[in-house]
């Protein structure tokens, strides 16, 4: 469910970065207020635990495919929402940097989808009320199941929204959602089962771990209304920001350039550098007249088409050349480095 950089527009990526950075700063503040010193190494080691657990697979009954733990909800149950959010974010950072899961721009999306949603929404608003003040195995199982499913549905839908808002993938919203939501319903059931199993086990073996978090009311103290208002505000802001970007201009950088230069685009190919270079083009061109001439099916009024054809051929040739030059310069530098060494 990791988002990838390649499918993300800068506007969406940037907005989600801002959202996740805000969440991390908020959770850090919360945590600093509550910090009992033991939590720092505990969070670190549990992050490593989630990391390891995600690599151990198990067979999903009746399907033959295998699944693994996501861990967002489990961490929230063990550590409380703020610490869980930070821990998952750290795991995602490591995965993005070392295993290239997702990517750096997509990190904001991933932290939000896999960390903030399960830890700060599914846990406090679904798991906690369902478990109540006196946890029992049945209550834990039901609560974990419902919270995991809701958390993953939210996360999957967030992935769909982020991808569609970016507009790089051509998948329509309904088709993509129709693909993602059922798959993540199954994944949510598995996540719920495993989370319930682990939490019940820990509750029987060391009840004080679960109870201490149950009593420490990290987010619980904030009234529900306030939190909901905050999220509504953030959603409106995000929606407005993204749609404004999306409608005004396909990408943020172009918009920024237009602001800086006062022009829609910098000097186009016709007037700018290209035209000046055209003078000595003929002498340099080692593939003269390589632009494909139309075979004459449409004898007239194809100037525009032809020039677009020419430009696309030039694009292909130039692209390959540039690629070769980029790689060759790397090769050259490496040779030289070896000689020096």
């Amino acid at each position, binding site marked *: 469910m*990791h988002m*990838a950089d*390649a499918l993300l*527009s*800068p506007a969406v990526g940037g907005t989600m970065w801002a959202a996740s950075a805000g969440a991390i*700063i908020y959770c*850090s503040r919360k*945590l600093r207020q509550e910090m009992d*010193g033991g939590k720092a190494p*505990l*969070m*670190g*080691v*549990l992050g490593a*635990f989630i*990391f*390891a*657990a995600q*690599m*151990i*697979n198990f*067979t*999903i*009954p009746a399907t033959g495919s*295998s699944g693994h733990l996501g861990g967002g909800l489990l961490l929230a149950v063990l550590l409380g929402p703020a610490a869980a959010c930070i821990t998952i974010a750290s795991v995602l950072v490591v995965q993005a*940097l*070392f*295993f*290239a899961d997702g990517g*750096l*721009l997509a990190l904001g999306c991933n932290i939000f989808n896999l960390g903030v949603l399960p830890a700060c929404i599914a846990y406090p608003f679904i798991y906690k009320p369902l478990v109540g003040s006196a946890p029992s195995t049945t209550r834990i199982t039901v609560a974990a199941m419902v919270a995991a499913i809701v958390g993953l549905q939210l996360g999957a839908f967030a992935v769909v929204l982020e991808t569609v808002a970016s507009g*790089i993938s*051509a998948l329509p919203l309904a088709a993509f959602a129709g693909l993602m939501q059922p798959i993540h319903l199954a994944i949510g059931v598995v996540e719920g089962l*495993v989370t319930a*199993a682990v939490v019940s086990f*820990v509750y029987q073996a060391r009840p004080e771990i679960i109870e201490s978090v149950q009593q420490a009311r990290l987010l619980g103290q904030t009234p529900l209304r306030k939190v909901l208002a905050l999220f509504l505000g953030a959603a409106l802001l995000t929606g407005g920001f993204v749609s404004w970007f999306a409608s005004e201009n396909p990408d943020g950088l172009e918009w920024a*350039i237009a602001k800086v230069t006062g022009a829609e685009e*910098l000097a186009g*190919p016709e007037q700018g550098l*290209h035209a000046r270079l055209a003078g000595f083009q003929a002498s*340099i061109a080692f*593939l003269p*007249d390589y*632009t494909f001439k139309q075979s004459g099916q449409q004898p007239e009024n194809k100037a525009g088409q032809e*020039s677009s054809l*020419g430009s*696309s*051929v*030039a*694009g*292909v040739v*130039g692209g390959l*050349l540039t690629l070769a030059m*980029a790689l060759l*310069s*790397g*090769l050259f*530098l*490496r040779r030289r*480095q070896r000689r020096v060494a």
Partner: protein
Amino acid sequence: MASITGAITEFRQLDLLANGNTSVHRIDARAKVLVTLAFILAVVSFGKYELAALFPFFLYPAVIMALGNLPVRHIARKILVVLPFALMVGMFNPLFDQTVLIRLGPLAVSGGWLSLASIMVRATLTVGAALILVAVTGFPAICHALDQLGMPRIFTVQLLFLHRYLFVLTEEGGRTARARELRAFGKKGLGWRSYGSLLSQLLLRTWLRAERIHLAMLARGFTGEFHPRRTTRFGTRDFLFLAGWSGLFLFFRLVNVSQLLGTIVTGGRG
């Protein structure tokens, strides 16, 4: 299991590469983090059908890999492992987007195929940039750089802790999983019930370990912060590195170098 051991090895290799001492390794981590961000932003800011204009950006990974003495094949393999994920979402583009955008002689290329190719090139570039950043900087240095750039201290400490215990925990997880595999007689694990208690056991052991670690750290005067061994100064070289590459990315973003070069070479009327 092979996957867990493999993951640990991969992990170690990237960490080992970061121990190098080339001119790129010596650049301040902040400059490298910011250049990587500028690179990724420039690459992803192109329109969905842009392909040729992306090629000049290969210059950055090529140069850094050469100067940083990174094993090309190793990095390339790591990128290849991740590409299928981008392909999974991108492969629907040719289905939904069939308007023909380019004709190369008899070959008609639809917008969907073009954007799919663009997605794959983007994925290669962005994933490569992130891996290269770690390989020439090292994870702890990146954490300290982010800390200096304003990341909350708690998050820095968390990242450093995580990095430190990742090896211990993945190895323990690998051993546990191997023990289960040996008792599963060729089946893929033993179902979710045994998976649940396996994870629970691992978790309880992890918890006890964390308590021991905390006591040991308190005994050594831990106050909630890590102190980096070497303090770095943001010098002229670092500034030039940052300004130079960022400027180049901006240039590549504004001027379609591939198109320009192609026009010159083919003598076309672009």
